[in-house]
């Protein structure tokens, strides 16, 4: 989902940056508030940030013959809300653009918007909906993380389609082409990320459910299926 340096027209780059910046600011404020209310929250957020940091470093081959990487922001968003992941995505993307020339500074806003805003929003909404529908929380988290991963890549496809419309099919035609590149490769990786996230979540809550609830992590009511 990294749009390469200089590969968005200046107007688009500025527009996406303007859209991502308030989310990062709100995210920082939300993190500061929660840490002030409960300093233990820092450790949990550290686990979620590390998960994103590790997964975005794994460039994995997929069934279509091309390679891509998981996003890693779904887990943190499901547990701590979507806002918390925007600053984390910014840190991950800055690291990669400065050290690896993967992504870029001019496309940072667009990349933060897809990785740190849209993906986390999808994960958070789906996890909450799953808990409300009394889906076992491991399954709810798996679905939320997997679909958040796909949503991130579809957002990148839309951003590129808006910047590079197809001469015949327009934006819709270009979106179909970009989504075709990302979506097929990403499906197995998204499923893998979902399983991995659900496993880490199980590890996190085993024996710590009471403490996690006290930190404001949304968990299924006691006595329901994990």
């Amino acid at each position, binding site marked *: 989902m990294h749009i390469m340096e200089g590969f968005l027209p200046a107007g688009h780059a500025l527009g996406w940056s303007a859209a991502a910046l308030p989310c990062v600011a709100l995210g920082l404020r939300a993190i500061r508030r929660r840490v002030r209310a409960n300093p233990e929250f820092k450790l949990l957020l550290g686990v979620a940030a*590390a998960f994103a*940091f590790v997964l975005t470093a794994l460039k994995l081959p997929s069934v279509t013959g091309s390679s*891509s990487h998981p996003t890693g922001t779904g887990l943190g968003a499901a547990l701590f809300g979507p806002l918390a992941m925007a600053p984390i995505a910014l840190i991950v993307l800055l690291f990669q653009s400065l050290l*690896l020339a993967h992504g870029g500074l001019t496309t940072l806003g667009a990349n933060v918007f897809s990785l740190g805003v849209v993906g986390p929003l999808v994960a958070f909404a789906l996890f909450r909906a799953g808990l409300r529908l009394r889906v076992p929380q491991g399954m709810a988290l798996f679905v939320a993380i997997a679909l958040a991963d796909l949503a991130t890549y579809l957002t990148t496809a839309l951003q590129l389609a808006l910047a590079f419309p197809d001469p015949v099919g327009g934006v819709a035609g270009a979106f179909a082409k970009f989504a075709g*590149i990302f979506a097929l490769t990403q499906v197995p990786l998204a499923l893998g990320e979902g399983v991995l996230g659900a496993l880490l979540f199980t590890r996190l809550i085993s024996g710590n459910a009471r403490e996690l609830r006290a930190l404001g992590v949304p968990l299924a009511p006691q006595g329901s299926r994990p």
Partner: protein
Amino acid sequence: MSRWRCRIGTLLCGVWWCLLMPPLAAAAGTDEQATRLAQTLVPDYRPWFAPLSGAPSAELEPWFFALQAVLGLAAGAACLVLLHRRARAQRSGRRAEGRAMNAESLDAPQGRG
């Protein structure tokens, strides 16, 4: 989720990893494919900004990604260990408190009746 389900999940992850990795190690990245498609759709587009650091060589790139993964793993493991220790300390604190309260209620004189 039971411990067994967790183990089966880990095993499935391993199988998934093994199936994906070996035959496709030299696969082209989707980011690069998307960049090429963008250039095909608008051939006269020229990137207006170059990466500040310059792309690392093909030999170095995997090491930088590995560095990122190792940093993430180290930070995540440290946070998990600290969380686990604190949760255990809180639990043992609660248990000690419960035992003290039980002992107190047993020692109290049976005044009624």
